């Protein structure tokens, strides 16, 4: 079950980046643990760390899925540009818009 797809499938070289099934399962387990940690905030009081922990976990999970499952980490620069431009713009405009509603104050 280890993927050495490159040998068999030359024209799709650029897409078969060493994310083997085993690695994928490992990453999924890590993601699962992080989710469990997130859910635990519902049962255990984290006090002042509540928000930062959740937000950090969210961002880490997001980036992990994007980088590995969507293998953006291994993709062409242009693809990163396309996706992260959208993401960045979304963050920027909506943060600013929410700020004008005094969301963060």
């Amino acid at each position, binding site marked *: 079950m280890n*993927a050495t797809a490159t040998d068999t499938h030359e024209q799709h070289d650029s897409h078969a980046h060493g994310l*083997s099934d085993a690695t*994928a399962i490992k990453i999924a387990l890590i993601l699962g643990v992080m989710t469990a940690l997130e859910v635990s905030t519902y049962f255990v009081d984290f006090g002042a760390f509540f928000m930062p922990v959740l937000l950090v976990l969210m961002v880490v999970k997001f980036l992990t899925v994007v980088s590995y499952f*969507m293998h953006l980490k291994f993709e062409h620069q242009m*693809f990163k540009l396309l996706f992260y431009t*959208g993401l960045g713009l979304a963050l920027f405009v909506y943060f600013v818009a929410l700020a004008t*509603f005094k969301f963060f104050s």
Partner: protein
Amino acid sequence: MAMWLFLGSECLLFGGLISTYMLYRGRITQGPRPSQIFDIPFTSVSSFVLLMSSLTMVLAVTSAQRKDNVRTKLWLTITALLGATFVGGQVYEFTAFYNEGLGFTTNLFSSSFYTLTGFHGVHVTVGVIMLLSLRGIISKDKDTGDRPEVVELIGLYWHFVDIVWIIIFTLVYLIPA
């Protein structure tokens, strides 16, 4: 590339819906509030299911790249099944909330909550339909053609739906107003 562009564009779509929700969730003149009716244990299971479906999707993509038709079909089916139960979970959740007094038009929280999660649910449903159709096409048509790329593109879409849920789960469910 077109898929990445589309996903970049979708970021702004979900960003808008999430912002609307964040803005409005505490503005309640009547009816239940978010923290009063959310069922976190159940939604956590849903989130796990969607996360695991991302894993099975990765497995489908790697199988397709190996030209392993049998496993590709298998993992596509498993992913679709997990996705379908997620959708079922959402249908359950909506029905339960409705019974507890949270109609679509009850208050600002309800309108923006149902719109946001409903949009996500529609995306998941479309994803499941694509997965199953792809599986159907693969079994009808033994010819491989460009299938690994199609599987991969649907995979990208599926993971995107998953990452949107990662954000929704944290911002909407876990962090109360």
